[in-house]
Structures are given as structure tokens and as C-alpha cells.
């Protein structure tokens, strides 16, 4: 008897899987990649599917690298990234006959955060470089309290890590002593409970538990607050672009239609709603 019911359950399960597989097969637009872009892409897909009920958009995360890898393997039609495609990736894509096309869908900024009781309000890019490469080890060297600097970085696979390294450290490496946190949440948590802590997060994640710093391009220039209007106008030094790469849109009407929606007034309104900055 129980054997029978197990068999029935198995059959039902198999049918369900088959059904999903069929639905997935035809009109689905697959989007994959960066966890930073994920909430935006999900919201866009939600609204897009309401407008076109016959179409299915499947959005998944995994990280910028995962998205680009899937694009190269033709496992996804669109890749979300929070960084430019790497040289090795574009070489690989060209060898597989794919010409990745870059679409800037939104702007975002990185905020440097410190403990709320840290008296420092702003730093220059050079000072940030000296801090994160391990050259400055105590806050009093920057006019702060006598407190050791504790660095909170992200894991090496994060797009935010890659952006911060390019924008702030350039060819220098992060200090070996930098703590690597598995997510934005743990960076905020750690900085909030460490008096000498400093970390970097996406602007949208800033909250009261930590203090966001103003950043100046060089000594003597103005310290800019990480606010949307400053990122939009491009004067905030740690602004970055968020991308979607397609593998050559002209052939696929579904992909073309998707980008028309992303760049429409409605699409760009969603960008603002999620906490990023529209590109048009």
C-alpha cells in the first residue's frame, strides 16, 4: 500500500518536473550574474512579465563571474555584472563565437564606512589606498583617535571587491591582514562593532549602524558626500556603473525587447525605486 502511494507520488513529481521543463523551454529570457544587480533585475523582470504575461523572464544570481561564464557557455541570454568584462573572458567569448555587448543599465556608488564613533568625516583616495594596502595602521596618523585600523574587505570573487581594487588600490594589492567578509551584511555588522573598523559597501546598503565617509579625489579637492545626485553628476569619485551584457542582441528579438523596456521611462523609474541611479 505504502509502495503504491510512493509510486503515485513519484509519478506526480515527475509530471510536475516535466511541466516546468516545458514552460521553461520556449519563450524564456534567462538573466544571470551579479548579486548587486540581482534585486534590480528581479524587479524589472517582475514588472516586465506583468506587461507581457506570455513571456517568462528567469533571473538568478551567483556573481558577476558566474553570469559571464554562463553567457560564454550560452546558458544565459543576458549576464548581469557589476564590473567590466575581463580580458580573459572576452577572449574566451570570441573564441566561442560570441560578441558580448555592454549595456549600462544603472549607476551605483561605493561608500566607505567606519564605526559611528570614529571622528573622521572624510578621506582622500590616496589615504584610502594607504589604509587598504596596509601602509597606515593607526587612525592617529590621519588625525583620528589612537586606535588600530581593522580592514574589512569582501571576498575576492565579489564584483564590489574588483571595483574597489581598481578604483582605489590600482596596481597595489589589498593588505594581507584585511579581513574578508562573505557579504555586505557582515561588513556592516563587523564595522559597527569594531571601533577601528573600516569597510566598503554599496550606497544602497548604508544604514545608521555605521558612518559613511565623504571622499575627495586628491588632497585639497572637495570632499564629496556619497549621495545620489553626486553619483549621477559624476563628481563622487567612487561611482560605478552596473551592466547587463548580451551575447549580440540583434539576432534575438526577446533580448532586444527587454533592453527597450529597461531603458524606457518605466524601467528607469524602477532603477531609482530600487536605490540605484538611472542612466537616462
Amino acid at each position: 500500500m505504502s509502495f503504491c502511494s510512493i509510486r503515485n507520488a513519484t509519478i506526480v513529481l515527475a509530471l510536475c518536473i516535466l511541466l516546468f521543463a516545458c514552460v521553461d523551454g520556449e519563450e524564456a529570457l534567462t538573466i544571470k550574474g551579479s548579486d548587486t544587480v540581482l534585486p534590480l533585475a528581479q524587479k524589472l523582470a517582475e514588472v516586465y512579465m506583468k506587461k507581457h504575461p506570455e513571456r517568462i523572464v528567469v533571473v538568478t544570481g551567483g556573481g558577476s563571474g558566474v553570469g559571464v561564464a554562463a553567457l560564454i557557455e550560452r546558458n544565459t541570454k543576458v549576464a548581469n555584472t557589476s564590473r567590466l568584462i575581463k580580458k580573459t573572458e572576452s577572449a574566451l567569448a570570441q573564441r566561442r563565437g560570441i560578441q558580448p555587448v555592454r549595456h549600462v543599465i544603472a549607476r551605483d556608488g561605493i561608500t566607505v564606512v567606519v564605526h559611528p564613533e570614529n571622528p573622521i568625516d572624510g578621506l582622500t583616495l590616496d589615504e584610502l589606498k594607504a589604509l587598504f594596502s596596509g601602509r597606515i595602521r593607526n587612525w592617529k596618523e590621519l588625525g583620528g583617535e589612537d586606535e588600530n585600523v581593522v580592514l574589512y574587505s569582501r571576498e575576492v570573487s565579489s564584483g564590489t571587491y574588483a571595483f574597489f581594487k581598481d578604483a582605489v588600490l590600482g596596481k597595489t594589492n589589498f593588505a594581507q591582514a584585511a579581513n574578508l567578509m562573505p557579504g555586505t551584511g557582515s561588513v556592516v555588522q563587523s564595522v559597527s562593532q569594531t571601533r577601528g573598523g573600516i569597510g566598503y559597501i554599496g550606497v544602497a546598503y548604508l544604514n545608521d549602524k555605521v558612518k559613511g565617509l565623504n571622499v575627495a579625489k586628491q588632497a585639497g579637492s572637495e570632499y564629496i558626500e556619497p549621495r545620489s545626485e553626486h553619483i549621477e553628476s559624476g563628481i563622487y569619485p567612487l561611482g560605478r556603473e552596473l551592466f547587463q551584457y548580451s551575447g549580440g542582441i540583434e539576432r534575438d528579438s526577446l533580448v532586444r525587447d527587454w533592453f527597450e523596456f529597461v531603458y524606457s521611462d518605466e524601467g528607469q523609474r524602477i532603477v531609482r525605486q530600487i536605490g540605484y541611479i538611472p542612466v537616462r
Partner: protein
Amino acid sequence: MITKAKPMQHSRDNESKPFQKVGGLTRIRERIIEAVLFLSASTAVFVIFAMAFYLFSEGGKLFTHSPVDEYIEIIANKSNPVEVLTPLEIGDLQSGKIRNWNTLSDFDAPVHFVNTRDFMEGTSPDNEEVHSRRLLDFVKATPGAIGYVFKDFLERPEDFRIIKVPTTDPGTFLLGSQWYPTVEPAQILGILSMILGTLYVTIGAIVLAVPISLGSAIYLSEFAGSRMRSIIKPVIEILAGIPSVVYGFFGLVVIVPFLQDLFNLDSGQSGLAGSIILALMIVPTIVSISEDALKAVPKTLREASLALGATKWQTSYKVVVPAAISGISTGVLLGVGRAIGETMAVLMVTGNAAVIPEGILSSLRTLTATIAAELGEAPQGGIHFEALFAIGAVLFLFTLSINIIADLISKKYEVKL
């Protein structure tokens, strides 16, 4: 049961024909069942072999090629006599730690390390070909210049000094102290800091867990009344059932700030926080195995000891524990194995700085945490990916040797008893 067993016995005992006919079907069924049971039992063996094979073949690839991506060529000015550079030297040239080539050879020229990002001005960031051409022109014209480009864009390699990077060898991999798996052009892959991190955290966990576990096991087996037992035993077992992510979260918000205040640390994210969490997680393993071992000690030994006038504690300490030592050490070593393999909770509380730890109170990174944090985005088949598999192989060898030691110990003492 009886009908099943009977023909079996007959067919085994004598091979005469009438019985064979009766037992034929049953015997086939028995054979099939035995085969199925054998298959289930051998799944574990198969899985271990498949896993070891995969780990070692993927990880081994790391040592067969240079740590520079196959699409990239590192080039220097033709006048530069240097031909071979290690990833560490390339890193130092790039970060400005080596400022003049005369540190490496008798060639006297300031180092100019360039990449295509330096030549992006006025073009689209995607126009790699233009950037590469500008870079090549720069390297050709500047004596101290070094840079890297796509092989496809290097049309006249004879105009440049092509820099070779030696293959990663197991020695530098195991004993290298720097871990920068995503730097371009040559990845710096040394895991010594993580091996030490794993050892520190594991040893700390064992030091904390063994006394507690042994105490609980002795209490449960020798002292506790049945009422006390029925309360304490299930509670200890619940510890084993809590997901490790919950331990990690608890550690991050409770233990980390506590240690920070207690030792007046810059940050409480430290090896000790990892050890405490791990100790909590391995206590149930050690307790249950040790308690079984203590219980298995024959009652006559205890009675003899008590009859000689020894107290309960003296009996436990001098007679029961020594008699059960093989089981207890197995339990401890299995705890060690679990501690080495635990990932998530440790990842959340140790801070994960890939630096050789100064002590148990500094931030450190374990082997498992590295795999967990980085595997997600390491491109499959790349050097980083292979390096993570090689770490997996190192972990596999760690656990394997611990299991072998556990086996040897339990055998050695079993004979004595």
C-alpha cells in the same frame, strides 16, 4: 523468516538436486538481495574513490602549467635581460615594491609596470585592441617597461622580451605565504597561512572541547542517575543538530563582541572565536563516542576496583577511563576531523584574513573557508579553480591521515585490553 532460512541452509549443506529445485527461486532472491546490500555498502567506497580521483586530477592540473592565463603574454622591453619572473616578483614590480630593475639583474632602469587600463583615455573601455596597441608602443619605446596583453594582439613578438613564469610547484603552493588568486597577470597562490589557520583553530577547539566532553562522558556513564541522564543526554545531542550557520551567527553577534571586550582586541573576529564555536560543535561527537566506550568497559572491572576500596572517582579515573582509552581517542580524533572540515560557522567568525596568524587572538583564514568563499565565482577550468581543488585535496589528505591515526590507536589499545 523460517521458510526463508530453511532452504538456504539445505542448499548450503548439501547440493542434492531435489532441494535445489525447491530452493532455486528463494536462492535467486537471496542472491539479488545480497547484491543490492553489497551495492549499498560499496556506494561509500565508490564515492570516496570518485571524489579523491576528481580532487587530485583537478587539483593536480595546477602544477602542470604556469600561473598566467593562457590568453595572456607578459612582455618587457627588448633591452631587458630578465627572462623569467616568479608571480611574487611580478606582484612586487606591479605594486612598486621593486622600483628599479637592478634589484633583479644588472639592468639599470626604473620599472614601469603598465596594463591596458592605463591607456583607456579617450576611448571606449571595451576597445581592448586600441588599448593593447598603445601599450605595445609604450613598452617598445621605454627601456624599463613591462606589461601584459592578449596573445591575439601581440603581432610582432620578436620586438619584445617575452617573460616566462615558471610552473607552480607543490612546494611554493604549500609554503607560500601570500594568497592573491585574482591578480593579473600572474596569480600568487600560497596556502601556508590557511594551513596554519586551520591548525590553530582546530587545536584551539580540541583544547577547549576535550575536557568538557570527557567530563560529560564520565559523568553520564559513571555518575549520573537515570533522571539526570535523560535530561543531559538529549540536550547534548541537540547541539549536534543545530545548523552550522546558526552557530556562525551566534558567534558573530555574541562571542565576537564578548572576546573583543574581554581581551581588549581591535576586533573580536579571531581564531579563538572560531575555536569556541567549533568546540561547541564537536562536543556531541566526542561525548557520544566516549560514553559508548566507557559503557563498554566490563562491569567486573568496576566491581573489582570498588571491592578493593577505591572510590567512584578513583575507579573512573584509574580503571574505567584507561580501559576505554581507545574508544575515547577515536572520539577525539573524529572530533578533530569534524573541526578541520567545518566551514560555514568558521567563515563567519574568524575574520578570514589570509595572513600568517600571529596567535589565536588574531584574524585568520581556514582552508575550508577559502574554498567556500571563492569557489562560487572562480571560472571553471581556470587557475584559481584548480588551486581551490588543490586545497580540497590537501584537506582530503588531512582528514584521511587523521582517520588512519584513529584506526591505528584504537587497534593498538584493543589488543592490550
